[in-house]
């Protein structure tokens, strides 16, 4: 078979080469000013620049040339090598730059760095596609750079970068707000699941209930997050005034309660909709077969409908969870804490790296929650259906 070009890999390689043109690190005289961007050759030196240039060029070559599995694997390995090299270089160069910089100078990561990461993962994605039947190779190229990154992070290799300096100054508070953020999305999704699944079942069973349920959930979904919070604040304050017992339960105008209520409302639509579709798409013939076998209504539900609809319902919960992880950022605006606290603090102080201290963990958390829920979905898919799909 003639060598096929892998256009995704080509895109990744070209992007990787282009990333060299952008500022790689930014040197700021203090954490407030925007500073000047430094390209790779101005910060790390020409030697490292040439090495990275060569690596990307080889990747580009491989993207044109090979369609064998080995080529894909080498491409993936090279991408990981570039990533790890970039990480090490970033930490090391930051340290060097700080030696000769004024006292409160900060080194931030520039566009070039982020583009490098994006390009490398495009390459890894392209390689993964061609390595579906060799899971070990595929796993190796997926996880190596990530594991190396975590190891380097814990070892303090990145401590000279502005983000880590901001983090280190407030690591206790970060831990507190991180767990608060988890509470801020787990609780609404949990409550939303219970209410949403019940509403979904009701809508699926009853033609009359279907319309009002979807009407309501659709409408509230369109209300922007901040607006919904703004609406809830006075309502909850008034309720807490009239019924003091609510205050004892922690439900009042400020704090996490309005945020959790708003997030619960936003979780409803994906869960209700998916439960509804999941139940409706169960083949009536299967249910008839069950009834024919003598199953009671409850047994039909438990043995047929639940397993068949579980994957789709879990998918809905997954979507709700990811939305909640992101929206929970708003809780900080009303004293509810969470990672949004650092985003707000960074914004108020004009310190962009502090914003990243809040924003990047939220992105990582979203990925982790997504992966965990996908795994849960795969586990919950009955064997028969899974076999049919793959």
């Amino acid at each position, binding site marked *: 078979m003639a060598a096929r070009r892998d256009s995704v890999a080509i895109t990744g390689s070209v992007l990787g080469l282009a990333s060299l043109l952008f500022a790689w690190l930014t040197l700021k005289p203090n954490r407030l000013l925007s500073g000047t961007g430094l390209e790779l050759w101005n910060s790390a030196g020409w030697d490292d620049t040439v090495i990275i240039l060569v690596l990307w060029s080889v990747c580009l070559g491989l993207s044109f040339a090979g369609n064998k599995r080995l080529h894909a694997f080498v491409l993936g390995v090279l991408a990981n090598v570039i990533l790890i090299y970039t990480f090490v270089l970033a930490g090391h160069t930051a340290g060097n730059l700080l030696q000769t910089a004024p006292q409160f100078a900060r080194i931030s990561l520039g566009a070039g760095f982020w583009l490098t990461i994006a390009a490398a993962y495009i390459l890894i994605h392209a390689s993964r596609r061609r390595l579906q039947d060799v899971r070990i190779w595929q796993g190796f190229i997926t996880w190596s750079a990530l594991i190396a990154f975590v190891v380097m992070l814990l070892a303090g290799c990145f401590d000279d970068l502005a983000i880590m300096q901001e983090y280190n100054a407030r690591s206790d508070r970060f831990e507190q707000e991180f767990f608060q953020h988890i509470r801020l999305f787990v609780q609404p999704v949990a409550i939303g699941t219970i209410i949403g699944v019940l509403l979904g079942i009701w809508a699926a069973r009853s033609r009359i209930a279907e319309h009002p349920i979807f009407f309501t959930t659709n409408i509230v979904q369109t209300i922007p997050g901040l607006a919904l919070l703004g609406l809830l604040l006075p309502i909850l304050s008034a309720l807490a005034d009239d019924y003091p017992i609510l205050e004892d339960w922690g439900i*009042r*105008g400020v704090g996490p309660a309005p945020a959790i209520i708003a997030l619960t409302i936003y979780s409803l639509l994906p869960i209700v909709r998916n439960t509804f579709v999941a139940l409706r798409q169960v083949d009536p013939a299967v249910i008839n077969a069950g009834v024919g076998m003598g199953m009671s209504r409850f047994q039909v539900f438990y043995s047929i409908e639940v397993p068949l609809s579980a994957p789709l319902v879990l998918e809905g919960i997954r979507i709700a969870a990811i939305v909640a992880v992101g929206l929970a950022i708003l809780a900080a605006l009303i004293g509810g804490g969470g990672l949004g606290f650092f985003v707000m603090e960074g914004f108020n102080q004009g310190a962009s790296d502090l914003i990243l201290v809040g924003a990047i963990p939220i992105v990582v958390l979203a990925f982790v929650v997504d992966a965990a829920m996908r795994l849960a979905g795969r586990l919950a898919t009955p064997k028969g259906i899974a076999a049919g799909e793959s």
Partner: protein
Amino acid sequence: MEKWIRLLGVMVIVMSLFIVSACDDDDDTSGQESKGPIVVGSKIDTEGALLASMIILVLEENGFDVTDKAQTGTTAIVRAALESGEIDMYPEYTGNGAFFFDEADSDVWKDAQAGYDRVAELDMENYNIVWLEPAPANNTWAVAIPQELAEAENLASLEDFATYANGGGHVKLIGSEEFVTSPAALPSFQEAYGFTLSSDQLLTISGGNTALTEKAAAEGTDGVNAAMAYGTDGQVAALGLVILSDPKGAQPVYEPAPRVRGEIIAEYPEIAGIINPVFESLGLETLQALNAKIAVEGQIAMDVAEEYLISAGFLAE
């Protein structure tokens, strides 16, 4: 069997999220025979966090059990929280009495003592809220310009600025909506010093964020060369800006002071004796330097507060 293993797997994943979310870090029961608990809040800004941290540390030093709710929310939220009893105290500015009680036109706010007396009186009457002693630092509105501009055009005060603007000098001032429209702010400067900025010379942003405005002036973003600033801002020098002086005293005086629920003072009158000396020690340069440590050096408010209180002798060790 397989089905049960799968079910178990799903439950483990879901339960682990629950367990993580149940980890309650803020179960800090100090459990001693301490007084309180006293809930201290603040606005979201740097200085609010700093002053609240000082209050918390000095109260704890004196045997109180304090709940830290610093950076509670925006001014409106913090006020509501105090008035509803959700927090017991927070640092507020004397000049804000003009807006709380709708007396913006009165001149009493231009005098530090008169303004303080007025707001203390009104708060006591209307909400049973006590104002403790203020810090002698005027955190009022100001205009900051880049050092190069100040040196090139010889601008030190707002009078010089007015002459420069009227003489056709390039001016682009960035400020919040409130700063540009409130009679106590920019209009007050314009009236006192005899200059008017047209709408092309103004860049209005929605929040009152001086970090943003000062950064814009420092970097000349969008042609901006003058920024709204606050008197005790710590980052002015670090950004290469200078604050124009206000010799005619056009601005109301905004001195920070703790605003405390009357019931708390009634129950623990010794609080006044504990907190007052701290605030009285905070002059303008002191506050600017402390704010600079937070804004420019990136230290957190609690650490800066602790360092200061130890060096000033309010905290042991």
